């Protein structure tokens, strides 16, 4: 396990530098005009970046208003009695709700859980696993569909939320099994 983790750590630190140098090196060897190719690609990237701005503004403003008004806290208070019998600490609940909406928000809540309950508490462990095993669904939706101008999402939201919910349930079950409590 130690060796595997070390290897994974090395991959995540070296992958980008190796990619940044390796790709142009191979391309040069194959006779690609690398500089004009890069510029062409970068132009496309720039356009995509500008195209997603309105989609991001729409979703982040709505999420900001929802959280700022205290709707999130209210929601968490309602759900608390439901989760208590399942052995889920109430303190992780806000993290479950924030996770699909805001990546930095969820990271902030996890940091707070680690600080207040200790890094090896059940709540902080569940929070850590949820944070690592799920994504900021609504951000991904806004960016990916925004880039190509899709406004009819069809089943994307229910399917993505089903994945998110499954990730949360699996996190709770696995953490309780592995670490007890």
């Amino acid at each position: 396990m130690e060796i595997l983790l070390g290897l994974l750590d090395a991959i995540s630190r070296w992958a980008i530098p190796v990619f940044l140098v390796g790709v142009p090196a191979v391309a040069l060897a194959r006779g690609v005009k690398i500089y004009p190719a890069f510029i062409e690609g970068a132009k496309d990237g720039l356009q995509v970046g500008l195209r997603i701005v309105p989609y991001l503004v729409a979703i982040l403003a709505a999420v900001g208003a929802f959280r700022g008004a205290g709707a999130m806290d209210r929601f968490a208070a309602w759900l608390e009695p439901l989760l208590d019998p399942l052995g889920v600490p109430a303190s992780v609940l806000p993290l479950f709700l924030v996770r699909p909406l805001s990546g930095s928000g969820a990271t902030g809540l996890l940091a707070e859980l680690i600080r207040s309950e200790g890094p090896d508490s059940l709540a902080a462990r569940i929070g850590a696993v949820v944070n690592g095993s799920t994504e900021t669904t609504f951000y991904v939706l806004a960016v990916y569909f925004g880039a190509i101008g899709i406004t009819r999402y069809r089943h994307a939201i229910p399917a993505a939320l089903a994945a998110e919910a499954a990730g949360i349930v699996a996190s709770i079950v696995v953490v309780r099994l592995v670490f007890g409590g």
Partner: protein
Amino acid sequence: MGIVWFLLLALGLAAAMAGGDVEGFTKGALDGAGGAVTLAIGLVGMLALWSGLLRIAQEAGLTALLARAVAPLMRRLFPEVPKDHPAIAAMTLNMAANALGLGNAATPIGLDAMEKLQTLNQRRDTATDAMVLFLVINASSVQIVPATVVALRAAGGAAAPADVVGPTLLATLVSTVVGIAAAKILAPLWPQRAPALGVEP
């Protein structure tokens, strides 16, 4: 999406009226809008860098090489995308980058994949089955090492900061499998050629 968007705003306002924080509502909306632009500006430079590099990789035939390696899996997941279509190569690359935790690299490549999927789309404002499935796989995060989480735990003084890696991998696998199943099962309920007043979320 319009309904979800409106619900977030309406529920926020309802909470504000029911003894919540009205100033917080306004501040949240304005900060969110400002934050979106800051976020996008940060993203633009990254997108340009990776898109440029990706173009080099494409012209050198590297992306096609990777795509051929995982073609059988991709063909089962995305049967409606022709097997030699450039979207397959871009999606493969995106998933590989995500698995390695290279989120910075994965997003631009993922957006490139979306643009390529869009070339197969008959209705340009409506997501195709392949787009939704690809998005759900992205949103369920198949990351091998949750670097941020491990770093946070280490900073908080955990006995073994990386001991959540195994459970995380298991949970992320469950969420990805459920996501793929949900995307496949739900697709016929939201037909792509739905009438204008359909059940669009």
